[in-house]
């Protein structure tokens, strides 16, 4: 590859436009993994079997690991973890809203459908990053991909089991009806989409990725007796929700979740600089 013409260089050497595009690609990816994991952890003592407690915890741990890998690359640009997560405002997060929704109460099918739709997307996204022009991303893609197989297997396995009888299938159908429009936010474009593709930070457009995703998820879900509001040819019968996440717009559930998982950080006053003496002006 001729680095001169198409490859991006070190974090310090990027032009403003390149850096903006790299950030725009990484932020939804990092936040998506992080917030999905936050939601998964709600299940880790309540999944239907001890093995699934372990499985969902393990998957959450992987996704947190992936989030950390992508946040590392944002930290290359001078941000700290506190800037990116613990002290960030709700609107600074760019994850697709699929991952922030609370689970329908006690609904394991929700966790499984969400995981399936997300993992099928993530795998596609990672493949579209394998040929990235940004070496810092290229270094990490293979490692993350290798850890995704198990997630996909887990979700498919549970989907089949849940769809084994009518009451189970009905639960899955309800979860699918509720989540599918939000799953479309995974492919929502940002204003940086053209730049990301032109600079080959990602080698496929989100539109193309969505097409491939539909080709895979629609037949599989239909084969389980589920009805999907889309066809594998790319026709989609539902609208995008009002809040897509990747533009900074979020559902009302998001500030609540953020508040909850940053509570310890705030309680420990980690955001406050330590002071040995009272400010004389305030004394």
């Amino acid at each position, binding site marked *: 590859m001729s680095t001169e013409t198409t490859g991006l260089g070190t974090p310090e050497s990027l032009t403003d436009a390149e850096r903006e595009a790299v950030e725009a690609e990484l932020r939804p990816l990092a936040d998506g993994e992080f917030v999905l994991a936050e939601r998964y952890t709600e299940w880790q003592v309540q999944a239907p079997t001890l093995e699934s407690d372990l499985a969902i915890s393990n998957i959450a741990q992987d996704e947190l690991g992936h989030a950390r890998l992508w946040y590392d690359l944002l930290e290359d640009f001078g941000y700290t973890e506190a800037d990116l997560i613990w002290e960030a405002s709700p609107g600074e997060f760019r994850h697709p809203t699929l991952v922030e929704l609370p689970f329908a109460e006690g609904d394991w099918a929700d966790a499984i459908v969400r995981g399936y739709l997300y993992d099928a997307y993530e795998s596609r996204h990672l493949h579209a990053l394998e040929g990235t022009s940004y070496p810092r991303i290229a*270094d990490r893609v293979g490692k993350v991909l290798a850890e995704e197989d198990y997630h996909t297997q887990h979700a*498919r396995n549970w989907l089949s089991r849940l769809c084994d009888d009518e009451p189970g299938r009905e639960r899955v159908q309800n979860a699918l009806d509720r989540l599918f429009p939000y799953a479309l936010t995974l492919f929502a474009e940002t204003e940086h989409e053209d730049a990301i593709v032109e600079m080959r930070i990602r080698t496929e457009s989100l539109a193309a990725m969505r097409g491939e995703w539909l080709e895979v998820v629609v037949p599989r879900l239909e084969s389980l007796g589920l009805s999907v509001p889309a066809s594998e040819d790319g026709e989609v019968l539902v609208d995008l929700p009002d809040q897509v996440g990747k533009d900074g717009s979020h559902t009302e559930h998001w500030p609540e979740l953020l508040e909850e998982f940053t509570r310890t950080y705030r309680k420990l006053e980690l955001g406050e600089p330590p002071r040995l003496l009272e400010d004389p002006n305030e004394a």
Partner: protein
Amino acid sequence: MTDQDTANAGSPSSPDGIAEQDIETEATIEGPEYCAYTDYNQDTPSETSLPATGENATGVEQRVWDRLYEIDDPEMPVSIVDLGLIYGVRAVEESEDTTGDAADAAGTRVAIDMTLTYTGCPARKMLTEEIEAEVRSVEGVSEVSLDLVWSPNWSLSMVTEQGRADLREFGLSVPEGEEA
């Protein structure tokens, strides 16, 4: 390293046939130049050059390898070198060192490339800080820069013979010729 890594390692872990693998990424695109961002790593690690063990290292590099051998994985009694986590150790020549501070101090800046068995490793900070502190106290070292790298992907094939023996002793068997 978790039990899951080793448990999975023995059996082929290819998922059943859904089209994840069928989606062709554009195979014609040539990959980016690996490690174009590192300024010090001339010998890019590759599957064939690993595990790196410091076999032919001399001087300060050899002393660093010796110290790294003394550091165990946080979960198992096996050296991080024998586990295959260290991808490279390199003493940075004075002339290459443009960062300034090190030039004043007596000693050499040492650059280390390492990986972790899995991305969610909760001991990442503990381990990297331990390594930095240990290596900084090696004779002749003035400064340590530790880079976490993820390519090539760590696998059981990077465990050395000694590492396999230590793992067996611990009760974990690494299959012969395991390429994970």
